[in-house]
């Protein structure tokens, strides 16, 4: 008996073509169903159709059975409490100002007696480990804690179905893993059925019981995870969203079963491919160019009484390279970037941009168009009604924005990737020679990442130096000429991505984990594929 059954579901927004057509899938009680598809493939619309309160206006055909009953037959109170919905953005889905009050919010809406509210809030806080934060204001929480609070404040209503719309897109990898773990625990321990849409599936896919693949509003495949993976292996748009092991498997054209975790990927390599050649030839070191950015013994803190965020940071970025600065939460990455952009003034140390001092004594930081920074939240740059006006604000229409069809849209109606493209176009209008990026891959789907990657390479080939601060090790491995690890405001190691990631044991890419001890210096799926092909199959 399935808990949620969707049959022949189609949906059309008023006055437009079909947004979704022909969806039929089901999920058992306590199962995790992962929705996988590019931005704009209809994942959010599908999830919203299953949540009555958030259902978009339009015509719906087909049936949705919730525990054997049509979902329309649920009472308002039942619909609100038994179907939980968590959205992407940790900041804005929180309604109240204190952690305890946010937990109580849903129960208050149901008009439950105070004693019941107190008990449920208390037990939920215990289950999610929120006791320490109980009386804290929400604004003092980290992004990961906020998202966990959003999950808890839905779970407090005792739902039997959880709908999660890219819940980890805005989180760093550690918080994302903790969030997925909490979701898995809810499904395994409390038999809550989970439907989760995700772009990055490295963490979530190993836990998924079933997989639903979407593309352009259509259902591509549905079924048990491994079987479905082999079905969609050839689909280009989707493959980028899948874990490294699956991508490698698809590239090499293996025979089932398909590996999912790094461990399985490692076994897959060892069983099928030789390792006579252990590493790829290293590209020659780039010619020695000048320094684009140099920080020497830079110290910074946000207030006199506060601890140092940057503790003697020393770092050199060469002209014309893509440099990725990695590190955990609170390591000072974003602060370092703001210092380089001239937005924050260090209290000791020297910052030079193309050899010139950035902070001359007792004067405004001099930048004069040589540096530009793309903020983490790109919507902070949007102030106009249309994309066209947005671009006009910075002079002529930018060369870097080539999407004519988007010019008359509102900036907020663009997808995450398109918004970022627009913001980059605005930032690039001042023709900076040094471009600073703060978490450029946050919330992007695979094809948007791919586009960003090629744009950055194009910029580099035109002589622009790029410094990106990121949590995203896979992106850094693919994009960077050099990577560096920042820890507690200090730079610990610098190197080419291959060396950098194969020397790291924990803070590293999935491919490095797979190939450890078998191949050397393989950081990306491309590296691993090249090595496998060079070595050939065992026994052939």
């Amino acid at each position, binding site marked *: 008996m399935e808990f949620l059954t969707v049959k022949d579901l189609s949906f059309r927004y008023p006055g437009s073509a079909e947004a979704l057509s022909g969806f039929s899938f089901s999920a058992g009680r306590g199962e995790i169903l992962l929705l996988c598809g590019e931005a704009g493939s209809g994942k959010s619309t599908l999830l919203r159709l299953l949540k009555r*309160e*958030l259902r978009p206006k339009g015509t719906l055909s087909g049936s949705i059975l919730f525990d054997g009953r049509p979902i329309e037959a649920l009472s*308002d109170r039942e619909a*609100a*409490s038994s179907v*939980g*919905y968590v*959205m992407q*953005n940790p*900041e*804005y*889905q*929180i*309604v*109240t*100002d*204190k952690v*305890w*009050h946010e937990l*109580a*919010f*849903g129960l*208050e*809406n*149901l*008009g439950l*007696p*105070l004693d019941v*509210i107190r008990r449920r*809030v208390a037990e939920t806080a215990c289950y999610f480990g929120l006791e320490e934060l109980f*009386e804290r*204001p929400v*604004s003092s929480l980290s992004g990961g804690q906020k998202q966990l609070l*959003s999950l808890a*404040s*839905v779970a407090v*209503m005792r739902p039997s179905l959880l709908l999660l719309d890219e819940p980890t897109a805005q989180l760093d990898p550690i918080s994302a893993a903790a969030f997925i773990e909490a979701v898995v625990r809810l499904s395994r321990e409390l038999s809550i059925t989970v439907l989760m849409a995700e772009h990055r599936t490295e963490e979530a896919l190993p836990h998924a019981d079933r997989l639903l693949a979407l593309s352009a509003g259509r259902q591509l495949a549905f079924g048990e995870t491994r079987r479905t993976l082999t079905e969609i292996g050839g689909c280009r748009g989707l493959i980028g969203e899948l874990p490294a092991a699956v991508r490698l498997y698809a590239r090499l054209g293996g025979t089932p079963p398909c590996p999912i975790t790094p461990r399985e990927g490692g076994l897959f390599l060892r069983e099928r491919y030789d390792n006579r050649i252990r590493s790829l030839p290293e590209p020659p070191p780039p010619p020695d160019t000048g320094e684009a950015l140099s920080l020497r013994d830079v110290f910074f803190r946000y207030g006199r009484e506060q601890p140092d965020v940057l503790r003697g940071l020393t770092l050199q970025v060469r002209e014309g390279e893509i440099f990725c600065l990695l590190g955990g939460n609170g390591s000072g990455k974003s602060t370092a970037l*703001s210092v380089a*952009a001239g*937005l924050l003034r260090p209290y000791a140390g020297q910052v030079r941009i193309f050899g010139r001092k950035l902070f001359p004594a007792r004067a*405004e930081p001099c*930048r004069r*168009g040589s540096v*530009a*920074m*793309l*903020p983490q*939240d790109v*919507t*902070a*740059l949007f*102030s106009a009604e249309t994309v066209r006006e947005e671009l006009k*604000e*910075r002079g002529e229409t930018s060369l870097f924005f080539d999407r004519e069809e988007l010019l008359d849209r509102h900036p*907020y109606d663009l997808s995450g990737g398109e918004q970022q493209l627009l913001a980059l176009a605005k*930032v690039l*209008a*001042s023709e*900076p020679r040094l471009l*600073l990026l703060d978490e450029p891959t946050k919330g992007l789907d695979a094809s948007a990442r791919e586009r960003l990657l090629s744009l950055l390479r194009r910029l580099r080939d035109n002589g622009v130096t790029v410094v990106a601060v990121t949590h995203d090790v896979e992106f850094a491995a693919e994009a960077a000429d050099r990577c560096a690890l920042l820890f507690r405001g200090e730079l610990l190691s610098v190197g080419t991505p291959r060396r950098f990631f194969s020397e790291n044991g924990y803070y590293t890419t999935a491919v490095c984990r797979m190939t450890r001890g078998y191949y050397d210096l393989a950081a990306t799926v491309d590296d691993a594929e090249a090595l496998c092909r060079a070595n050939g199959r065992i026994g052939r």
Partner: protein
Amino acid sequence: MRAFSDCHPAAVAVCLLCAALPPMVSMNPVLLLTALTGGLLLLLVRRGATGAFLLSSAGLFLLLAMINPIFSHKGETVLLVINDRPITAEAILYGFAASASVLSALFLFRSFTQIMTSDRLLCLTGMLSPKTALLLSSALRFVPLFSAQAGRVRAARRGMGLARPDSPAARFRENTAVLSTMVTWSLENGIVTADSMAARGYGVGKRTQAGLFRFRRADGAVILLSLLLTLPTLVGMMSGQLAYSYYPALSGIPLSLPAAAAYLSFGLLSLMPAALELRGIVKWNFLQSRI
């Protein structure tokens, strides 16, 4: 019995309101002096006043008292004449009474705002109207969020290569752009918040309001006592037994039996918050010495 500031917000509010009301209405010097002492003691016991605050209140006290005789020339006892205008002892005393009235209210409200953290205020509004309480709570969340985002927008614009505005016109243009960004931002993210509220059943029925504070017997006792102790003062003020006039000459301080009862009960009421607070502190020190 806990300290005064640990009582239920309703008890704190009723007690402080009862203590603050008479000195705002009556100009009886005994009531005013009592209220001023009570307010000051509560502040001192709670360590709620810095030296600077006390000093500036003393300054304010004198300033307010001095202003009255400059403008008011009523009264019989002329002390000196400036520019043909008499400065009278009655006007000076009236000035002091008015300052006492203002300062006692100031002291009590300072303690009130220090005790009433946002959680307590929310509990109090929730008792009156759950809807207003939610509004207050989301406002308390939204305001810091808004100002933080505005800061980020300014930084992002400067990071984009726009120079810091240096002329008033440039500053105006810059602020307009920031405001426009913030308006769109608020509207867009307001939709997310509204969705999140609807998803959790906002509007399906009558709301309850949860709070961290339990109403205990002692809280009821504080409220009851506060109301009872206000009664004689209230009766005295209504019946005119506590009336006191400064002009043209000072009337004698009323000392009838009802007036004396009012002085006594109001004295107890004014001292109650400070006494309860002190009791809590003393008890805690005592307990700690035995742990």
